[in-house]
């Protein structure tokens, strides 16, 4: 099956993997945001804790979780391979004077940097919520669900934690501002009628999703502490 190997290891093949996993991760962001909006419900976290219990026990969700981890894994792995290859392509001698800022966007040139910030955030985020929810003893709420809402509340009352979250959402927003539309272009989905629409949707998507996520730590920090 060398043709498959050649396809996925070609420069276009690797970019297609970046694109497919990136757009898949965008769909995850939507689900994650909508579910977590229950934090704003004002019921002392009962709905959120019920939802957390469902998400951590439902077999279909557990299977989806494996696909999600694979999506992150491939996206991150390919970004390392491509970055190394791209740096090698330019060579050791850089331009003495380079005005690349006059012909391209900062965000489009710094997807690796933005992605690295998001990765650091992701590790902290997974430890604080995923690891502690699954492997640390947590108190139970009145409906006998683990009180993850309490963990959220105490975490988001720490100023540096809130700052990290907000900065990560800014990085994610810039990452998506380029990544969303770029993903479609890489898949060859460029059309005079639809590309302008994809770009507008991408901008709206990036801003709405990241503002929604950033609102959570800010809400708890400002109104609940």
């Amino acid at each position, binding site marked *: 099956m060398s*043709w498959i190997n*050649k396809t996925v290891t070609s*420069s*276009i093949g690797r970019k297609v993997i970046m694109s497919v996993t990136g757009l898949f991760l965008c769909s995850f962001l939507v689900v994650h945001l909508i579910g977590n909006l229950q934090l704003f419900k004002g019921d002392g976290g009962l709905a959120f804790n019920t939802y957390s219990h469902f998400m951590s026990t439902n077999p279909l969700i557990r299977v989806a979780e494996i696909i999600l981890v694979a999506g992150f894994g491939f996206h991150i792995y390919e970004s390392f391979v491509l970055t190394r290859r*791209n740096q090698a*392509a*330019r060579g050791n001698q*850089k331009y003495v004077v380079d005005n690349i800022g006059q*012909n391209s966007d900062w965000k489009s040139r710094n997807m690796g940097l933005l992605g690295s910030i998001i990765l650091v955030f992701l590790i902290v985020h997974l430890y604080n919520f995923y690891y502690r929810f699954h492997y640390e003893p947590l108190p139970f709420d009145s409906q006998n669900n683990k009180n993850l809402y309490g963990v959220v509340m105490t975490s988001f009352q720490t100023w540096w934690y809130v700052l990290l979250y907000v900065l990560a959402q800014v990085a994610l927003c810039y990452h998506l501002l380029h990544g969303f539309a770029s993903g479609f272009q890489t898949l060859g989905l460029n059309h005079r009628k639809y590309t302008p629409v994809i770009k507008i949707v991408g901008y709206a998507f990036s801003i709405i999703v990241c503002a929604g996520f950033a609102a959570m730590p800010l809400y708890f920090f400002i109104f609940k502490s």
Partner: protein
Amino acid sequence: MAGSNPNAKPMNLTLRVWRQKNRTTAGKIVDYQVRDISPEMSFLEMLDVLNEDLLRKGEEPVAFDHDCREGICGSCNLFINGRAHGPEAGTTTCQLHMRKFSDGDTITIEPWRSTAFPINKDLSVDRSAFDRIIQAGGYVSVNTGGAPDGNEIPIPKEIADRAFEAATCIACGACVASCKNSSAMLFVSAKVSQLALLPQGHVERKTRVENMVAQMDKEGFGACSNIGSCAAECPVGISLENIAILNREFLSAKATSNNLA
């Protein structure tokens, strides 16, 4: 100079030029002063003045590539003040005129930088990687025999125009030079979509894109990050739409060709 603008004041400039003896030695920036440069000179004519000065002083002239000097051949490739073909959009270096600069300016001149384009000497790079990509599939095989009738194969005007736009690529390499990844995707995409759009190119459509992309990767060019520097610096305005066409052609060829290797 006949027909010259009498109001054009001559300029004195400081040039910072990349000097490198050959492929294996390290290069460096060397400063030169050039005097009495007419604003009506092309950038290459200004370099000719520099080289005449250097020859008079018994120094080695600066090596740079040039051929037609009318913006067609794609030879005159210089990275000027941090931009491929200089600050003006839609021009090759030979069509860049000194009136775009001011008296007293410092101009930094470097060669294209890409491991796939090794430096021959000074500002001259070896772009034969592009030739090898074309040899891998950027052609149409034609059987010998009587010339076919001109209108035998109907091609819609819109398709012919788009193919022609892609065909205007002069293979100068500004896309590679300006891309942070030194990617050749814009060049390859122009050649692939030009032939994929036309019926004459359909016979070798799948093998062409498979082989050209394989050769592009083999030469060591980077991948496309869709930053758009290439299209912004392209002297003939090849659009990013071609890269989407290339990716479509590549994926559909990989999925449907009979090539298992």
